[in-house]
């Protein structure tokens, strides 16, 4: 037991409330004294002089005093002298024992005070604490700003003092013991005041009394009063704005420009699938405290982002972000109307290659028109010659015809030069030699592939069967022969447009009749008799009219269009609803393509997958759509010929089918199942691997011919963390239906990648999302 402890303890005796422990202590001491024989002086021989140095208070604040006493056997002694050890920095003591603490805390903050008698020194230790601060005033005396620089006046401030605003510490600078400067933020706009106090630091931390400081901050107004998704620009007016301010939206800091003391502009990005409200907050950058907050509603949209994104897998070439937002705002019906009113965009020299068509489909203004034109060309099949421009006239006709009438489509198909060459229509002459018959190629395929198909159909697209359960042929060989005869006598027109004239044939011109090559005999096509002596034009018109009137035409054409746009295996009732519109658009017109397309896209079975997925929904993306959808999502455009060549690697050589039998048959069934999925005809163990490789090459820039024009990095620019990017892919590419497991997997995988390549995590996320089977089937 040390001398100090012994000496200091009796101070406790002076206070009644310490009696009990003091008694215990004295008791122990007595035991020690009789047991050890050691004196309580730590080894010094017992002396007749036992002086006790004590104090009322063992702590004293700077600038304060405390009385130290020296007693012997309870009586004051006065033959010694007081001494403060360590010099004047530790304070001073009067002769009467009044100890004056120094103005500043000494290091360490314990001071030994000794009472010296002769050669003996009896000590006590006091602890110096910081003074209790006093707050008296603040300047300015009224706060007008959201963030204010304030001078606090008072007394007994020490270095390290903190100003508290409504009890919360704020950045404080020590000026002198009477002045502090602090940043005072006003967090309740429109309130009446803040409460200030000052807190001195340890040792002996203490807080001053409160000082009420009135505030007068003008209300803040934020415009616009509701927000649209995408790029956001807020204008904030109020008062007291300084460069210390930052505006945030749901915690995300916006790019803030303080235009003046009363106006700020903040720009940022709001994920367009957000609904509800956002919290706009103004904060002080230096204090990180929020100053003002206001919820701003997000403007309701005609349809959700997710619905619009899914719609573009049916009505366009994939969910291009700006198009999605546009549809989100105007709705599906208005989009169809708007799209069908925009005329086709012609592509002209200098560069008429297929890649230009692809870019037009992905980046252009007529996605619906071009998607329908592509759907038509899936069964109205022809190929140009190796000069790519020879494909353009037919593409343009199909684009125009997508809002025309199917009867006109039939005329266009029968008069197009590239089709004429492909199916041997050009120069197919009547035969004077009975041992030679007209070429049957076009006549047969016109019936089998372009209009009515080979077997009789019900209005719901199902195959009619005879009593023995086998299908009923829709036409016989006689009909093929008669159609071939009826369509004899068509040749190239004299060239008019040099841009499309190759090897003497003007691919942009329609075929013209050559009566000397036409078979003028009588023919019968179904129930129509074509009398003898008609011109080539008359015969063609009656032939096409007869085919157009055939009961098979609506179900044959409608089921294929549904398969191409929406669903590989539509229910018979869906087909029938669309067939009804094909037969009569409501104004007595048969074959109104615009009405048919609208019916297909807005049918409940097309839209049910927006909210309630069904197992039979959707279609496997054929290679061309796999590529274009990915381009729309990632912002790539095509350069050189690559975008046309890529589907060819996956065995769909767009605009250059090898036979008239399409890339895949409408009736193709996945082997071993009963699932009708035409596109599956091109998917095998080789092409599915190549699909992944092409996608990886495209995303990482290793597949030649894909470039990113400026401002096309919508995904990477606006979603900079992996979780945000995966969320964006969920909405844009999966219309909100990416499973939680898949989201977690991709997020964890990409976030955990150890790599020096800063792009690899985000590229991997995009790749995994677009490679997944649940994406590659649009449903």
């Amino acid at each position, binding site marked *: 037991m040390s001398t100090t402890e012994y000496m200091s303890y009796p101070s406790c005796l002076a206070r009644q409330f310490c009696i009990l422990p003091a008694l215990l202590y004295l008791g122990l001491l007595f035991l020690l004294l009789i047991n050890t024989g050691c004196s309580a002086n730590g080894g010094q021989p017992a002396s007749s002089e036992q002086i006790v140095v004590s104090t009322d208070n063992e702590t004293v604040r700077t600038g304060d005093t405390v009385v130290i006493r020296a007693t012997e056997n309870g009586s004051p002694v006065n033959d010694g002298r007081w001494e403060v050890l360590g010099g004047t920095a530790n304070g001073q003591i009067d002769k009467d024992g009044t100890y004056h603490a120094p103005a500043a805390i000494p290091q360490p903050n314990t001071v030994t005070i000794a009472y010296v008698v002769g050669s003996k020194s009896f000590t006590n230790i006091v602890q110096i604490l910081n003074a209790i601060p006093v707050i008296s005033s603040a300047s300015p005396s009224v706060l007008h700003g959201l963030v204010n620089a304030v001078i606090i006046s008072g007394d007994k401030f020490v270095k390290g003092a903190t100003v508290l605003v409504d009890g919360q510490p704020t950045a404080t600078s020590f000026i002198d013991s009477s002045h502090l400067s602090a940043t005072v933020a006003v967090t309740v706009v429109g309130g009446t005041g803040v409460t200030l106090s000052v807190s001195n630091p340890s040792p002996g931390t203490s807080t001053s009394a409160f000082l009420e400081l009135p505030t007068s901050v003008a209300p803040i107004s934020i415009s616009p009063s509701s927000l649209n998704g995408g790029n956001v620009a807020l204008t904030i007016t109020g008062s007291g704005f300084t460069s210390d301010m930052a505006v945030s939206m749901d915690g995300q800091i916006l790019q803030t420009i303080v235009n003046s003391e009363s106006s700020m502009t903040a720009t940022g990005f709001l994920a367009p699938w957000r609904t509800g409200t956002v919290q706009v907050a103004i904060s002080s950058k230096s204090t990180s405290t929020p100053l003002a907050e206001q919820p701003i509603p997000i403007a309701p949209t005609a349809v959700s982002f997710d619905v619009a994104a899914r719609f573009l897998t049916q009505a366009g070439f994939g969910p291009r972000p700006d198009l999605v937002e546009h549809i989100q705002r105007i709705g599906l019906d208005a989009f169809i109307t708007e799209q069908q009113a925009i005329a086709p965009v012609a592509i002209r020299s200098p560069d008429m290659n297929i890649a230009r068509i692809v870019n037009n489909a992905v980046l252009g203004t007529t996605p619906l028109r071009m998607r329908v034109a592509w759907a038509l060309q899936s069964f109205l099949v022809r190929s140009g010659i190796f000069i790519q421009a020879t494909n353009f006239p037919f593409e343009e006709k199909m684009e125009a015809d997508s809002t025309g009438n199917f009867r006109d489509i039939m005329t266009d198909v029968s008069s197009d030069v590239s089709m004429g060459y492909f199916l041997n229509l050009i120069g197919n002459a009547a*035969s004077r030699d009975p041992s030679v018959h007209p070429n049957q190629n076009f006549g047969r395929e016109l019936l089998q592939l372009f209009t009515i198909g080979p077997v009789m159909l019900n209005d719901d697209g199902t195959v009619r069967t005879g009593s023995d359960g086998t299908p009923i042929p829709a036409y016989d*060989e006689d009909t093929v022969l008669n159609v071939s005869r009826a369509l004899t006598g068509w040749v190239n027109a004299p060239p008019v447009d040099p841009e499309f004239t190759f090897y003497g044939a003007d691919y942009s011109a329609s075929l013209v009749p050559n009566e000397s090559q036409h078979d003028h005999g009588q023919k019968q096509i179904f129930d129509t008799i074509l009398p003898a002596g008609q011109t080539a034009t008359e015969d063609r018109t009656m032939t096409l009219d007869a085919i157009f009137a055939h009961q098979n035409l609506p179900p044959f054409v409608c089921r294929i269009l549904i398969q191409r746009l929406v669903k590989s295996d539509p229910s018979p009732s869906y087909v029938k609803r669309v067939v009804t519109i094909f037969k009569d658009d409501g104004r007595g017109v048969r074959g109104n393509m615009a009405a048919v397309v609208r019916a297909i896209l807005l049918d409940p079975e097309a839209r049910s997958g927006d909210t309630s*997925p069904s197992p039979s929904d959707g279609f496997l993306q054929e290679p061309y759509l796999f590529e274009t959808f990915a381009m729309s999502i990632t912002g790539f455009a095509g350069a050189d010929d690559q975008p046309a060549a890529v589907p060819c690697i996956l065995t769909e050589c767009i605009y250059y089918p090898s036979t008239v039998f399409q890339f895949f048959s409408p009736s193709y069934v996945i082997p071993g199942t009963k699932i009708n999925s035409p596109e599956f005809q091109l998917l095998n163990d080789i092409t599915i691997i190549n699909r*992944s490789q092409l996608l*990886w090459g495209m995303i990482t820039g290793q597949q030649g011919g894909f470039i990113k024009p400026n401002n096309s990095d919508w995904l990477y620019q606006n979603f900079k963390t992996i979780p945000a990017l995966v969320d964006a892919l969920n909405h844009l590419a999966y219309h909100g239906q990416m499973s939680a497991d898949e989201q977690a997997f991709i997020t964890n995988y990409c976030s955990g990648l150890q790599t020096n390549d800063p792009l690899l995590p985000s590229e991997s996320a995009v790749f*995994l999302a677009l490679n997944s*089977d649940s994406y590659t089937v649009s449903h």
Partner: protein
Amino acid sequence: MNITRRKFLNLSACTGMAGATMPLWANALSENAFAQNINSSSYKAVVLITLIGGNDGNNMIVPISTTSYSQYAALRGAIALPQASLLPLNGTGGSTLGPVGFHPSLANIAQRFNQKQALIVANAGPMVSDATKEQLLSDVSLQPELLYSHPAGQAQWLSSTTAALPETGWGGRVADISASLSGSLPPVLSASGSSLFSVGRTVQGIALQVGGTGGTVAVPTGLQDAIRSLTQQDMLSDNLLVSEVAHLRNSAMAQQAILSEASAYGTLPTLGFSESAFGSAMKTIAQIINGRSIIGASRQLFYCAQGNYDTHQRQLSGHATYLTDLDSNLGAFMNALDDMGLTDEVLICTHSDFNRTMQSNATLGSDHAWGNHQLILGGGITGGRVVGTFPDLDLGGSCDMGTQGLWIPTTSVTQMTAGIGSWMGLNTSQIASVFPDLVKFQGGAIELV
């Protein structure tokens, strides 16, 4: 590669089938389903080549004696081949048209024929049953469905049926039985993408990578593992198409390594394969056969397509080009088999949608017809002969369905393919199950040996 029993049952429930088929090849299950193994003492393979579009058999095999040739030339008019250009085929004097010769482009095949390593199947086509012209014209149900249609014709040859939309190919059905002998890959391998030929009742085929991958880059290994994980989830998807795609991807990723190894095994001399798609395909098949020990197969079927034989116009030049491509690569392939010592173990045969009208059309071509002539090479067959009977070249006569020379077949596809099935080693009851309509044809299966 093996799907679980539970998933198999789920799929059957979805598709409403009684459990007889599965979406993907699975060796173990087929072993259980077909306990009787065929005689597997050595390696045997069938290579089927479909001539897409309807090969004009009338100009592939031409009567060469003066009387018959004159009749031929009169009928064919501007598309007749010059008599002097025909390649004589020894031992064909006894055919119903007398001695015949090959189209001038078929030099290699002619040589093999004259070495008794090739034979001709005359006037074959899909048939419902033996029927006369009168019967056929009066009862449409006696005709194959959608006669003269490309897809129906092709499918009927590949399936050895007369249905317009058959569900299985005869190659797949043979493979159902031979699957246990196909090693670690499916029994039917296609060098021309997906084909009905490889679809069986329980097994299916896969496609071979022919030529390069068009300069695509490989996906890094770590990402491939990630793809596999995601695929496992997608295999359980409620969406029918997603689940099917995922199953295919799962199998494909497993099969890739074996395929690469097999096709790179050993050094096969190039032996004159051409750069055409067909040449690349035949070369790939040869390489895979060369690597059969990697796969562990003793019975395999291969599929390949060549085209386009739909010569509606300007037939002579186009037909010659394609036949040259066919001949040069078949020659190279037979040479490769010789080098591998497999000349008698690998059998090659042709199919085609249909023959073409004997009479030409106004654009120097011909249109769709029916009964056609096919070739069978290799396999240790007794070659140098014509199997079956040629039509009598009488337009509008008893062999002509119409007036332009649409020959009514005298040998059905099934009689031809059942003969190949026997060659593969199927026994009588297996033949009956794979080729159920064989009983309708009095002549029975053709005999190859």
